[in-house]
């Protein structure tokens, strides 16, 4: 998955200590469950949802968010889900997969075979989701996930096992690139910085495809190791490429900050700088200060998005309620985690009471699902089980102090945007 962005990739030593404890016992998300028996299976009026998350390790923080979002969904619906026209109590079993693929596979096997869960939701991270999917597939079941957006999920699990609620990473750049391509004077030269990891290459490929579509030249392409420290050499490379209209950096926050600093230090002034995976974390703004002006980022979800569902009149309201409960504003990971049980709920509402969780009918229902309004935006899946979404919206930081406003796509835009951006 992509979320090196929000979380520094610092392997936690606590993972080693805690892993054993958490892995051993199920961790039920706190929901008051009126008179549920130990047995699961749906017939007794309980919907048993199973999941694993990398609760310890580098994705510790983001897993926390995902888990809170599962909990938030449960609270929102009073711990109940309507399945086949009948309200049932929701029971969660969530294990810690430590971001370890074989552990994720093992735990998924346990969820399906031993715990006999009715539904499986995906974990967070490309490799772990793929490993999970292999087990789900072995059992002929289906699952909904948003923790892996790589095209590999479509290739290996799409169309039969996985339904992916997250857009393809190749489309992340689309909002920003379409926005920039429509500016005058039209940008002609782009410098591309790609982190050396399949997911980032996929994003980079998306940028190149968009450039081809819009007639923009990719004049230089720098591939950086994931543990890159110094971005000055990259800035120098970009300067060597002549006056650039756009610099597109696929990297996460700190990579974007460092690149912006170094470009500014040695006087590389592109007309637009896109931090492909730059987040709206306040730290970014504090660190970059006035250099934030005019920087563009792609984002798959923000509370400002004009989304709504049956419980929340706006994404903003969702965000505020979430913040009131957990003390922080929900990130896009919170939104896409919330949507996983939500999708099941919508798909199963009118399921066959005789066999509501039948994999085959569930697969058909998910394929046919067409939700106009959810907190995550419109949800429907293509033939590879991928959510239909061809562009991530783009934000641009403007004003002083800089605030992120949506500039693309046109129907969501809050502002016309700035191009060229002011010099650093």
């Amino acid at each position: 998955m992509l979320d090196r962005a929000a979380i520094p990739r610092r392997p936690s030593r606590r993972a080693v200590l805690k892993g054993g404890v958490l892995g051993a016992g199920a961790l039920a998300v706190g929901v008051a469950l009126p008179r549920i028996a130990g047995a699961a299976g749906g017939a007794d009026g309980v919907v048993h949802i199973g999941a694993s998350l990398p609760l310890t390790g580098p994705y510790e923080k983001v897993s926390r968010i995902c888990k809170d979002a599962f909990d938030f969904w449960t609270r929102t619906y009073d711990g109940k889900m309507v399945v086949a026209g009948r309200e049932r109590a929701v029971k969660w079993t969530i294990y810690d997969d430590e971001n370890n693929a074989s552990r994720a596979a093992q735990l998924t096997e346990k969820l399906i075979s031993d715990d006999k869960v009715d539904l499986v939701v995906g974990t967070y991270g490309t490799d772990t989701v793929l490993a999970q999917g292999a087990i789900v597939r072995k059992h002929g079941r289906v699952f909904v996930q948003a923790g892996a957006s790589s095209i590999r999920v479509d290739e290996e699990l799409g169309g039969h096992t996985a339904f992916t609620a997250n857009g393809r990473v190749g489309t992340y750049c689309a909002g920003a690139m379409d926005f920039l391509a429509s500016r005058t004077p039209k940008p002609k030269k782009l410098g591309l910085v790609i982190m050396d990891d399949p997911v980032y290459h996929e994003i980079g490929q998306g940028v190149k495809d968009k450039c081809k579509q819009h007639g923009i030249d990719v004049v230089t392409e720098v591939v950086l190791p994931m543990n890159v420290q110094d971005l000055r050499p990259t800035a120098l490379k970009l300067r060597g490429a002549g006056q650039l209209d756009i610099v597109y950096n696929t990297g996460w926050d700190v990579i974007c900050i460092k690149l912006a600093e170094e470009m500014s230090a040695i006087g590389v002034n592109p007309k637009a700088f896109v931090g492909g995976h730059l987040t709206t974390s306040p730290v970014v703004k504090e660190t970059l200060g006035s250099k934030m002006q005019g920087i563009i980022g792609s984002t798959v979800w923000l509370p400002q998005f004009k989304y709504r569902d049956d419980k929340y009149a706006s994404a903003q309201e969702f965000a505020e309620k979430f913040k009131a409960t957990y003390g922080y504003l929900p990130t896009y990971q919170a939104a896409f985690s919330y949507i996983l049980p939500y999708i099941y709920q919508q798909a199963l509402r009118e399921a066959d009471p005789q066999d509501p969780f039948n994999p085959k009918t569930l697969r058909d229902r998910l394929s046919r699902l067409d939700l106009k309004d959810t907190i995550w935006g419109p949800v429907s899946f293509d033939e590879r089980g991928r959510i239909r979404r061809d562009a991530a919206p783009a934000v641009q930081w403007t004003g002083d102090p800089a605030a992120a406003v949506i500039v693309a796509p046109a129907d969501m835009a809050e502002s016309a945007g700035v191009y060229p951006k002011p010099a650093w």
Partner: protein
Amino acid sequence: MEDVLVYGLLRGGIYALAAFGFSLVLGVIGIVNFAHGALVVFGGLLTQYLAVKFGVPYAAAMIGGALGTGLLGAVIQRLFVARTFTLEPLMVLVQTFGIATVVTELGTLGWGSEERMLRLKTGLPPGFMLGDTFVPSFDLVVFAVSLVSAAVLFVVLGRTEFGRAIRACRDNRESAQLSGINLGRTFEKTMFLSGTWAGLAGAMFVTLSPVAPYMHFSWTVDSFLVITIGGLGSMLGALVGGLVFGVLSFGASFYAPTIAPAITFGVLLVFLVFRPQGLLGAGPAIRK
């Protein structure tokens, strides 16, 4: 080519600054201090904290950050290393690794795991042209501070009583003690000096690039590379090693970014095989 050289040298100043203390501690106390990078990061974050939280002017925040880090170094020495440095070297290695972890975790608790940076308004022009290379003014300031502080360290070690004591303990622990030198106190002072210069490196670096607790290990590794190239036990070696390493890593990241770490470590191996004493080392890097 020219710009790669210039930028590499500019970076090298900070690497040298960070490596002085690492080299000193390895030479005098005889330990590979895995917590060294944590000290660099601590110095950067402390400086940033003093400047942002209390509005301390940068020069004062930098000195505060450096001295605070020196103090942390001395405390680490007194509470932990002093009790184990005579043991199995591996145990000390593990111990300093543990200290690095603790310092990092505590830093994360106190300051959070986010990257932080200190932006300065120096009033300097953004930079000037050196031939065809644009040299940012502040980079040059940092470089100058590196050189000056290297000179200060040189004088401290070469000319002062304190410096003589440190060198005496490095050369021969027993003789030094029998000349009336308090070994434990001298080691604490060594760690203080080491921490101060590490903190200074962090204090300078935090104005150029974001710093966060999790970055500590790359500073330790870089310091290690610098003294492997420059030579153990020589401050001049650390300076030259820093500059060479600066150019080397910049060049590698410029010409072959994806394999840059492999290139720098390759050079390390070459040095270990063909010139274990480094460019300017006093002797082979083996413990007496």
